[in-house]
């Protein structure tokens, strides 16, 4: 039943200009970034060609692009997810789902899957850029695959945070702002602590980049997977709780 909602969410995203505009803007920015790094690589390549352990095109072009995707999505996912509940609440469409007899958890999961599906499409389109280099050179496809997996886990977590913010906010704009603050906080948490001279494993563990970087280096560790799954689950559970609380409070 959640899949019915997910499909509808995906359809609603694709019939609105916002999603298309964001998709075009994100891919445009990434394409520019991709060309710049490619240009840089072409300049650098003759100089490092003789060094046996020199980084290759995967390290110098593909992975920087994936890092750029992560940074851009940090800003874009809140905009894509802001309407999930706050928008429906504002337009009066939320009672349709609430009165359907589906559990709050299923409603949240349905909305979540729809948003994640859209983001996966976006990531795959962006990945087509570095993959196109395969025509002329040999990419480290295993590393690209682990990096893509990490990126998908990362955006799935961002989507859960955006949905959670949307379930608490009355207006979509507030939801987007809230999700953005959460994202940036989790992104810069460890950097902030380090600037302050605090080097704590706990603060490190909380920060998003700590768990994304290993994937980009080709390392799939359960601790990182657990982190993303845990964070997403907590965010979705909070969103579910919020819907339930609204049934009691009105």
């Amino acid at each position: 039943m959640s899949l019915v909602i997910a499909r509808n969410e995906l359809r609603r995203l694709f019939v609105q200009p916002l999603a298309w505009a964001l998709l075009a803007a994100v891919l445009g920015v990434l394409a520019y970034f991709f060309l710049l790094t490619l240009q840089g690589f072409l300049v650098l390549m003759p100089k490092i060609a003789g060094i046996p352990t020199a980084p290759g095109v995967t390290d110098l072009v593909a992975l920087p692009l994936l890092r750029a995707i992560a940074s851009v999505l940090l800003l874009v996912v809140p905009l894509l997810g802001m309407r999930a509940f706050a928008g429906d609440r504002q337009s009066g469409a939320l009672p349709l789902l609430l009165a359907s007899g589906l559990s709050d958890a299923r409603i949240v999961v349905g909305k979540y899957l729809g948003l994640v599906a859209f983001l996966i499409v976006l990531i795959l389109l962006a990945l087509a850029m570095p993959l196109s280099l395969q025509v002329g050179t040999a990419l480290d496809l295993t590393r690209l695959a682990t990096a893509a997996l990490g990126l998908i886990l990362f955006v799935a977590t961002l989507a859960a945070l955006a949905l959670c913010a949307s379930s608490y906010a009355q207006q979509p704009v507030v939801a987007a702002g809230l999700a953005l603050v959460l994202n940036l906080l989790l992104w810069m948490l460890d950097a902030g602590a380090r600037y302050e001279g605090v080097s704590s494993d706990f603060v490190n563990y909380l920060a998003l980049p700590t768990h994304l970087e290993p994937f980009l280096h080709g390392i799939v560790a359960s601790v990182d997977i657990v982190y993303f799954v845990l964070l997403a689950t907590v965010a979705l559970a909070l969103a579910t709780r919020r819907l339930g609380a609204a049934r009691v409070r009105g």
Partner: protein
Amino acid sequence: MLAGRRIVASLNLTLDRGSVLGLLGVNGAGKTTTLRMIAGLLAPSSGQVLIGGVELSEQPSGARRLGYLPELPPLYAELRVGEYLDFCARLHGLRGTLVTQAVTRVIERCGLGDVRRRLLGNLSKGFQQRAGIAQALVHAPDLIVLDEPASGLDPLQAVQIRALVRELGKEHAVILSTHLLPDVQACCDRVVILHEGRARYDGPRQALGDDLEALFLRIVSTPDEPVAA
């Protein structure tokens, strides 16, 4: 109880298939709160809602025999009428060819044939209201709950909606809330007058004849006087 305030109390309603119950009251009487509780949007602090003898919260999802139209029709402005009703049918557990059949039937019944390919956001208020009613009907529920279905419509649209409600009352059990006496006179078999959260009158409409307005005004102006059914 909402925010520590008692909105509706000691309300006891039963309704059979094939009848239309009109919940009448001034603004703030507790009509919408009552309907939201029936639809499962609000949990009553005490008491229960049974449909077909089964508690609302215990009904399996998808098999819920209830259709609900809130005061503001719950539409997705960016979808076309057909797409939207297709989703509503699936949301209530219909699958395969049943979806197409149900959508075709409800579009015909609610007079939405000419606008089926138009975006919901671009429709007039009357058509949006019809689309809202259509989503409440599409899965052929036993109980249909309509919150002020004719408010804000022009006289012609209001007449058409009332005729539709009367039609629905032949096959389903319908509860509608309204503060418009003509709504009740045109389509209800039974009237419950709600005032300050309590049912002050509960009885067949025919028994009232033309006295509905007088009774209503008496209840509203003398809140403490008991009124028998």
